[in-house]
């Protein structure tokens, strides 16, 4: 993770910095939001006395009282549904879903109400709700504890979908999510929770707003487009690619909805090649949308089809097999190698791969 931290730390503020984990930065963001705005209320399972299973709400019930940081009954539709009611009354709820897969019971409340209430009422009932979802794998979690569920949320008009990859973004994007007037699905990459970066809680650096992607690493040969838990993987891949003579650019999307077509298209037009990288299953996942948008906008600049490196199209594996599923440096480099470099122009390339009868055995 160090590459990313370096980058986030290089944005330049002057206050005293010390190593802080992403979980701590999120905690600070919640605390600061609660201090600043008395309508901010936290709700979830075990977020009070315990401080959350990831300790992101640590100390907040003690500091702000149980009415502002509430241990709810164990019922996710009830949590999100009552948050919707609280928002109707002018509060600004921040909901914690304990794990990705445990947000599913609240799916109807999310899709049929949180995402639509503003539209339904012509703006009379905005839904300034933040739903924090710890997501993704790589932490040895047993079944239902490592889902990447962002595709569901991306396919739901009315939701914003945001995911940080750095400590600074964790703080900055969560603050932005809480003040947003719309429901924001705030996806926290579990395996980056304990990644540290030098950071100042007294003077948190400013980060670009929701809706903006950031180029984490400049490069000229090809662009890796990624987000959340796969950002450090792509940074490492870009580093490793130097040995192969490739100078890779890395775009951290940060916000899946709204999507930053400008930053992405600008990069791909410049490099002419792109690989989309994410942990979520490939089929029907975010990468299809992203690749399609890039192709629509950059077709004549592309030297090769936009490729995808993603989780396989399978339920998330058990802990002992997850390393085979997660897109890693080698797999990213393999894809980069298939970007139809001039030297390969005689080879058959990707366009002959796949097909209904094709494939493995």
């Amino acid at each position, binding site marked *: 993770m160090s590459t990313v931290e370096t980058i986030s730390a290089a944005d330049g503020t002057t206050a005293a910095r010390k190593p802080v984990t992403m979980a701590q930065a999120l905690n600070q963001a919640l605390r600061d939001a609660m201090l600043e705005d008395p309508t901010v*209320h936290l709700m979830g399972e075990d977020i009070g006395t315990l401080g959350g299973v990831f300790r992101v709400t640590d100390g907040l019930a003690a500091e702000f009282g149980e*009415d502002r940081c509430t241990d*709810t*009954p164990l*019922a996710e*539709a*009830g949590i*999100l*549904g*009552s*948050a*919707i*009611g*609280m*928002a*109707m*009354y*002018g*509060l600004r*709820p921040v909901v914690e879903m304990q794990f990705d897969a445990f947000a599913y*019971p609240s799916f*109807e*409340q999310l899709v*049929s*109400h949180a995402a*639509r*209430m*503003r*539209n*339904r*009422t*012509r*703006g*009379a*009932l*905005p839904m300034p709700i933040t739903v924090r979802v710890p997501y993704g794998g790589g932490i040895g979690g047993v079944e239902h504890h490592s889902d990447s569920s962002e595709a569901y949320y991306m396919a739901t*008009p*009315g939701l*914003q979908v945001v995911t940080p990859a750095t400590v600074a973004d964790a703080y900055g994007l969560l603050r932005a999510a809480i003040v*947003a*007037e*719309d429901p924001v699905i705030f996806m926290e990459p579990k395996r980056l929770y304990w990644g540290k970066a030098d950071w100042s809680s007294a003077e948190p650096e400013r980060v670009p707003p929701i*809706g903006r992607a950031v180029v984490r690493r400049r490069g000229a040969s090809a662009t890796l487009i990624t987000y959340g838990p796969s950002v450090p993987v792509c940074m490492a891949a870009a580093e490793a690619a130097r040995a192969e003579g490739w100078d890779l650019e890395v775009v951290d999307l940060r916000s899946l*909805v*709204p*999507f930053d*077509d*400008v930053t992405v298209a600008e990069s791909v037009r410049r490099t002419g090649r792109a690989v989309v990288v994410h942990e979520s299953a490939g089929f029907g996942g975010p990468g299809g949308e992203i690749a399609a948008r890039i192709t629509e906008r950059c077709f004549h600049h592309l030297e090769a089809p936009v490729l995808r490196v993603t989780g396989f199209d399978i339920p998330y594996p058990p802990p002992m097999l997850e390393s085979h599923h997660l897109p890693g440096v080698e797999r990213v480099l393999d894809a980069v190698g298939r970007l139809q470099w001039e030297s390969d122009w005689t080879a058959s390339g990707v366009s002959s791969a796949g097909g209904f009868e094709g494939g493995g055995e």
Partner: protein
Amino acid sequence: MTVLEQPGAYHLAPPPAWRPRLDPAPLLPDGEPYHLLGTEADLDPELLSRLHAGVVRGRRFNEQATALTKQGRLAVYPSSTGQEAAEVAAGLVLAEQDWLFPSYRDTLAAVARGLDPVEVLSLLRGDWHSGYDPRATRVAPLSTPLATQLPHAVGLAHAARLRGDDTVALAMVGDGGTSEGDFHEALNFAAVWQSPVVFLVQNNGFAISVPLAKQTAAPSLAHKAVGYGMPGRLVDGNDAAATHQVLGEAIERAREGGGPTLVEAVTYRMEAHTNADDASRYRSSEEVEHWRAHDPIALLERELRALGRLDEHTVEAVRADAEDMAAGMRDRMNADPVLCPTELFEHVYDQRTPQLREQSALLRAELAADEELAAETAAGGTGAERAGVPSGADEGVRRPGSETR
């Protein structure tokens, strides 16, 4: 491994978490639905008159709305004919600061609360999903996904209590809706938080075609209250006075910090589920007739007459008032609503995303092209043809035979 060595362990008192923490008896509903009309009870004649005017208007409202479906002016209408007493009691019982959470069948409760009938009918007319301002009216949008509005009511009531306001939320749901998980979660949250919310279940005997016996095996729906630790009340939902009183007591209890109540109002849906439904497929006309004899309007009129508060003059005035309302509905609903297609992009988010700006521009360009074309040819193509759907779409509503909501 074995703890044989520990002496006397078993003689310690069992831990305190063991005992039921409250006596269930006071939570249990009566064995018979509570009723007032036709009893010796001393009733407020003013209230009875207000309820009477309300149910007469309500019946007329249902009739007019059903007529509008036949004229293609409403996409669909789920009538509350037969249920006017509960609907009107719910609409009238609330204080100004209270909120109402109606389900899709409860247009009438919103109208009884004083909302503009045409605004309330937006959803069913099809010009927008919800036509009134919920904050200004303190009526949540009519909820179509069943029981989903109940957690909203709890959250709102909870928020009001946290703010120190004396607002109560009244949430309405049908007998079928009680089977949904959201019903359970809402009642549980309300009881744990002691939120000022009252749940009104209108048990009208059916969820579309499914009779109560296939919905639950409970002694009554009001008995579900016990499992949450809140009181359950069973009331004759066709008796407007009894329903008004039971709801009023529950609301005041909630307002004073006493927590939530579950009220089951037993009633009957006299019409089909909606105009698109065919009730003869699943119930007998005898059953319907049986209930016609327990009509909420008749019950009130009998009482008022006995009190000497209903002469032909009053009846006439109430009827005229209802006719006025119906005429107003008719006139206004027969006018085509002014629609702005690009409004589709305006409220999805606080600020349109770049993508929605593009899409809005695309639609605007299409509409402009259509207009040009229409200017060129007398009988030019319209948006409906553009959409590749059969003509008729521009009447706003097309319903295939048996489609039901």
